């Protein structure tokens, strides 16, 4: 059985949006509850957050943007760049803790302390751009981890699979011309869903042409279409790229009970997708896989989805 890490910290609950915002602390509480109530905690390596060293964040974000983010939080400004990105005085510090926790998980995987992990962090990251906040995201958690693994640990090729229902524009843009990071995203078609990017024709630029791949899915297509894409397109694409580690942008918002989208994945569908990803990690990366939470807003469904997700990482079934 692989050693699975679980990054969770109550301080992640201190990033407050507003009562009517979907990206709320209750999401993490629901995820934690699901994992705890299933009795999984004793068999997980529990990881607490720590603050990220600013140099890693500066590798992916403009310095002025980072300063601006900090100053706005210090001044108590309640939103940044767009009304979607609501925050509180603590948000900057919590975002630093999210990145820091994730990088620590990266270190533990590289040192062999754990094989894989689920990082239940807030705020999410895949919409955050180099110089602006977007879609509930401030720091590009996944992109920063990829860069950290390459820079600090000499990882050559990073494979990112993003199955959040929204396209991860930020992650894509950060590695658009970089052939050493494969960004693969399956998401609701951009004509029907935020952020309006992630069309098939976006395939990377320059040296990075071919190491960005987008698979937009039409509304209502459900498990069958997602699984077909994962098996027939994502699998061969990742085998060909042959990454040294797999990072997963895990969004639970394609679920049929999540009102943020219209894709209609079932709970079983999520499990099947995650099993394929874990199998891929076994065959390509010696099991090295780090899953990082992005979206997912159906509070009633999150406990079970998170529990299943972690059980698959632990290979409990």
């Amino acid at each position, binding site marked *: 059985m692989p050693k699975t890490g679980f990054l969770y910290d109550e301080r992640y609950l201190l990033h407050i949006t507003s009562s*009517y*915002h*979907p990206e709320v602390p209750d999401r993490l509480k629901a995820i934690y509850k699901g994992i705890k109530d299933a009795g999984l905690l004793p068999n997980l390596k529990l990881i607490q957050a720590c603050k990220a060293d600013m140099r890693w964040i500066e590798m992916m974000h403009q310095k002025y943007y980072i300063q601006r983010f900090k100053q706005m939080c210090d001044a108590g400004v309640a939103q940044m760049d*767009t*009304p*979607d990105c609501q925050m509180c005085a603590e948000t900057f510090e919590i975002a630093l803790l999210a990145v820091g926790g994730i990088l620590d998980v990266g270190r533990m995987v590289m040192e062999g302390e754990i094989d894989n992990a689920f990082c239940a962090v807030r705020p999410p990251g895949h*919409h955050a751009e180099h110089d602006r906040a*977007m*879609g*509930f995201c401030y720091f590009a958690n996944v992109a920063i981890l990829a860069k950290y693994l390459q820079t600090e640990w000499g990882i050559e090729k990073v494979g990112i699979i993003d199955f959040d229902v*929204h396209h991860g*524009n930020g992650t894509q843009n950060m590695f658009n011309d970089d052939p050493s990071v494969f960004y693969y995203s399956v998401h609701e078609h951009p*004509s*029907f*869903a*935020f*952020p*309006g*990017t992630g069309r098939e024709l976006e395939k990377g630029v320059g040296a990075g042409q071919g190491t960005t791949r987008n698979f937009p899915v*039409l*509304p*209502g297509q459900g498990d069958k279409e997602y699984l077909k894409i994962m098996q027939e397109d994502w699998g061969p694409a990742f085998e060909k790229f042959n990454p040294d580690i797999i990072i997963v942008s895990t969004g639970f918002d394609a679920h049929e009970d999540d*009102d*943020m989208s*219209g894709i209609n994945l079932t709970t079983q569908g999520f499990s099947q997708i995650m099993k394929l990803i874990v199998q891929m990690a076994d065959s390509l990366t010696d099991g090295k896989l780090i899953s990082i939470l992005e979206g997912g*807003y159906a509070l009633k469904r999150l406990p079970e989805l998170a529990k299943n997700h972690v059980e698959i990482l632990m290979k409990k079934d």
Partner: protein
Amino acid sequence: MFVGNSMVKKVVTANRDTSIVEVREKLALHKIRHLPVVSKDNRLVGMVTDRDIRSAMPSELAEGCELDEKALSHLKIKDFMTSDVVTISTMDTIQDALLQFQQKKVGALPVIDEKGILQGIISVRDLLQSFINVLGIGEPGVLLGIVVEEKVGQLKKIVDAITEENVSLGSILVSRYWEEDKRAVFPYLLTNNPARIKKKLERLGYSLINPMDWCLDHNAP
């Protein structure tokens, strides 16, 4: 909305005596398909398209083979250009241009002033950029489709409901709907959080259209 603002102003042109071989080279070099023909004082006298070239040349030459080009160099533009050109003026609107493209079945329109002097050229491709802007593509957001009854004040209620949620609009399209006395409204919301707005609109009695039935132009689903 005027053609003068959307047209290409630096136009590649030819004159009546330009040879067909030269025209072919100009089209390839500038990656264009339409070449206005002008007199010495830049007055529009005709138009040549890549299709005209293909029709006028043996197929081998049109594809760029080195087949006795000298023998064809006597063939001048004036021999195969269209003299009766569909044109548009700088002060016509892009709606005028759209209708011209549709009705005259041309891909580009030379833009002339009242004296017939060439001022620019506008192609279907140039208008695409305008419509990408109008549709709000390129700004992060999400589209909704709503059925409304065709009566005054519907749009205001929708816009009010969106505004009350502190969400900005990237664009709003209104189109024909397949049921009589109804319209389809497509607001493009600059947010990742449309769920509350959807619920609010439904509470107000509006029906959201299934995204798989969204359509900007047809008579029946």
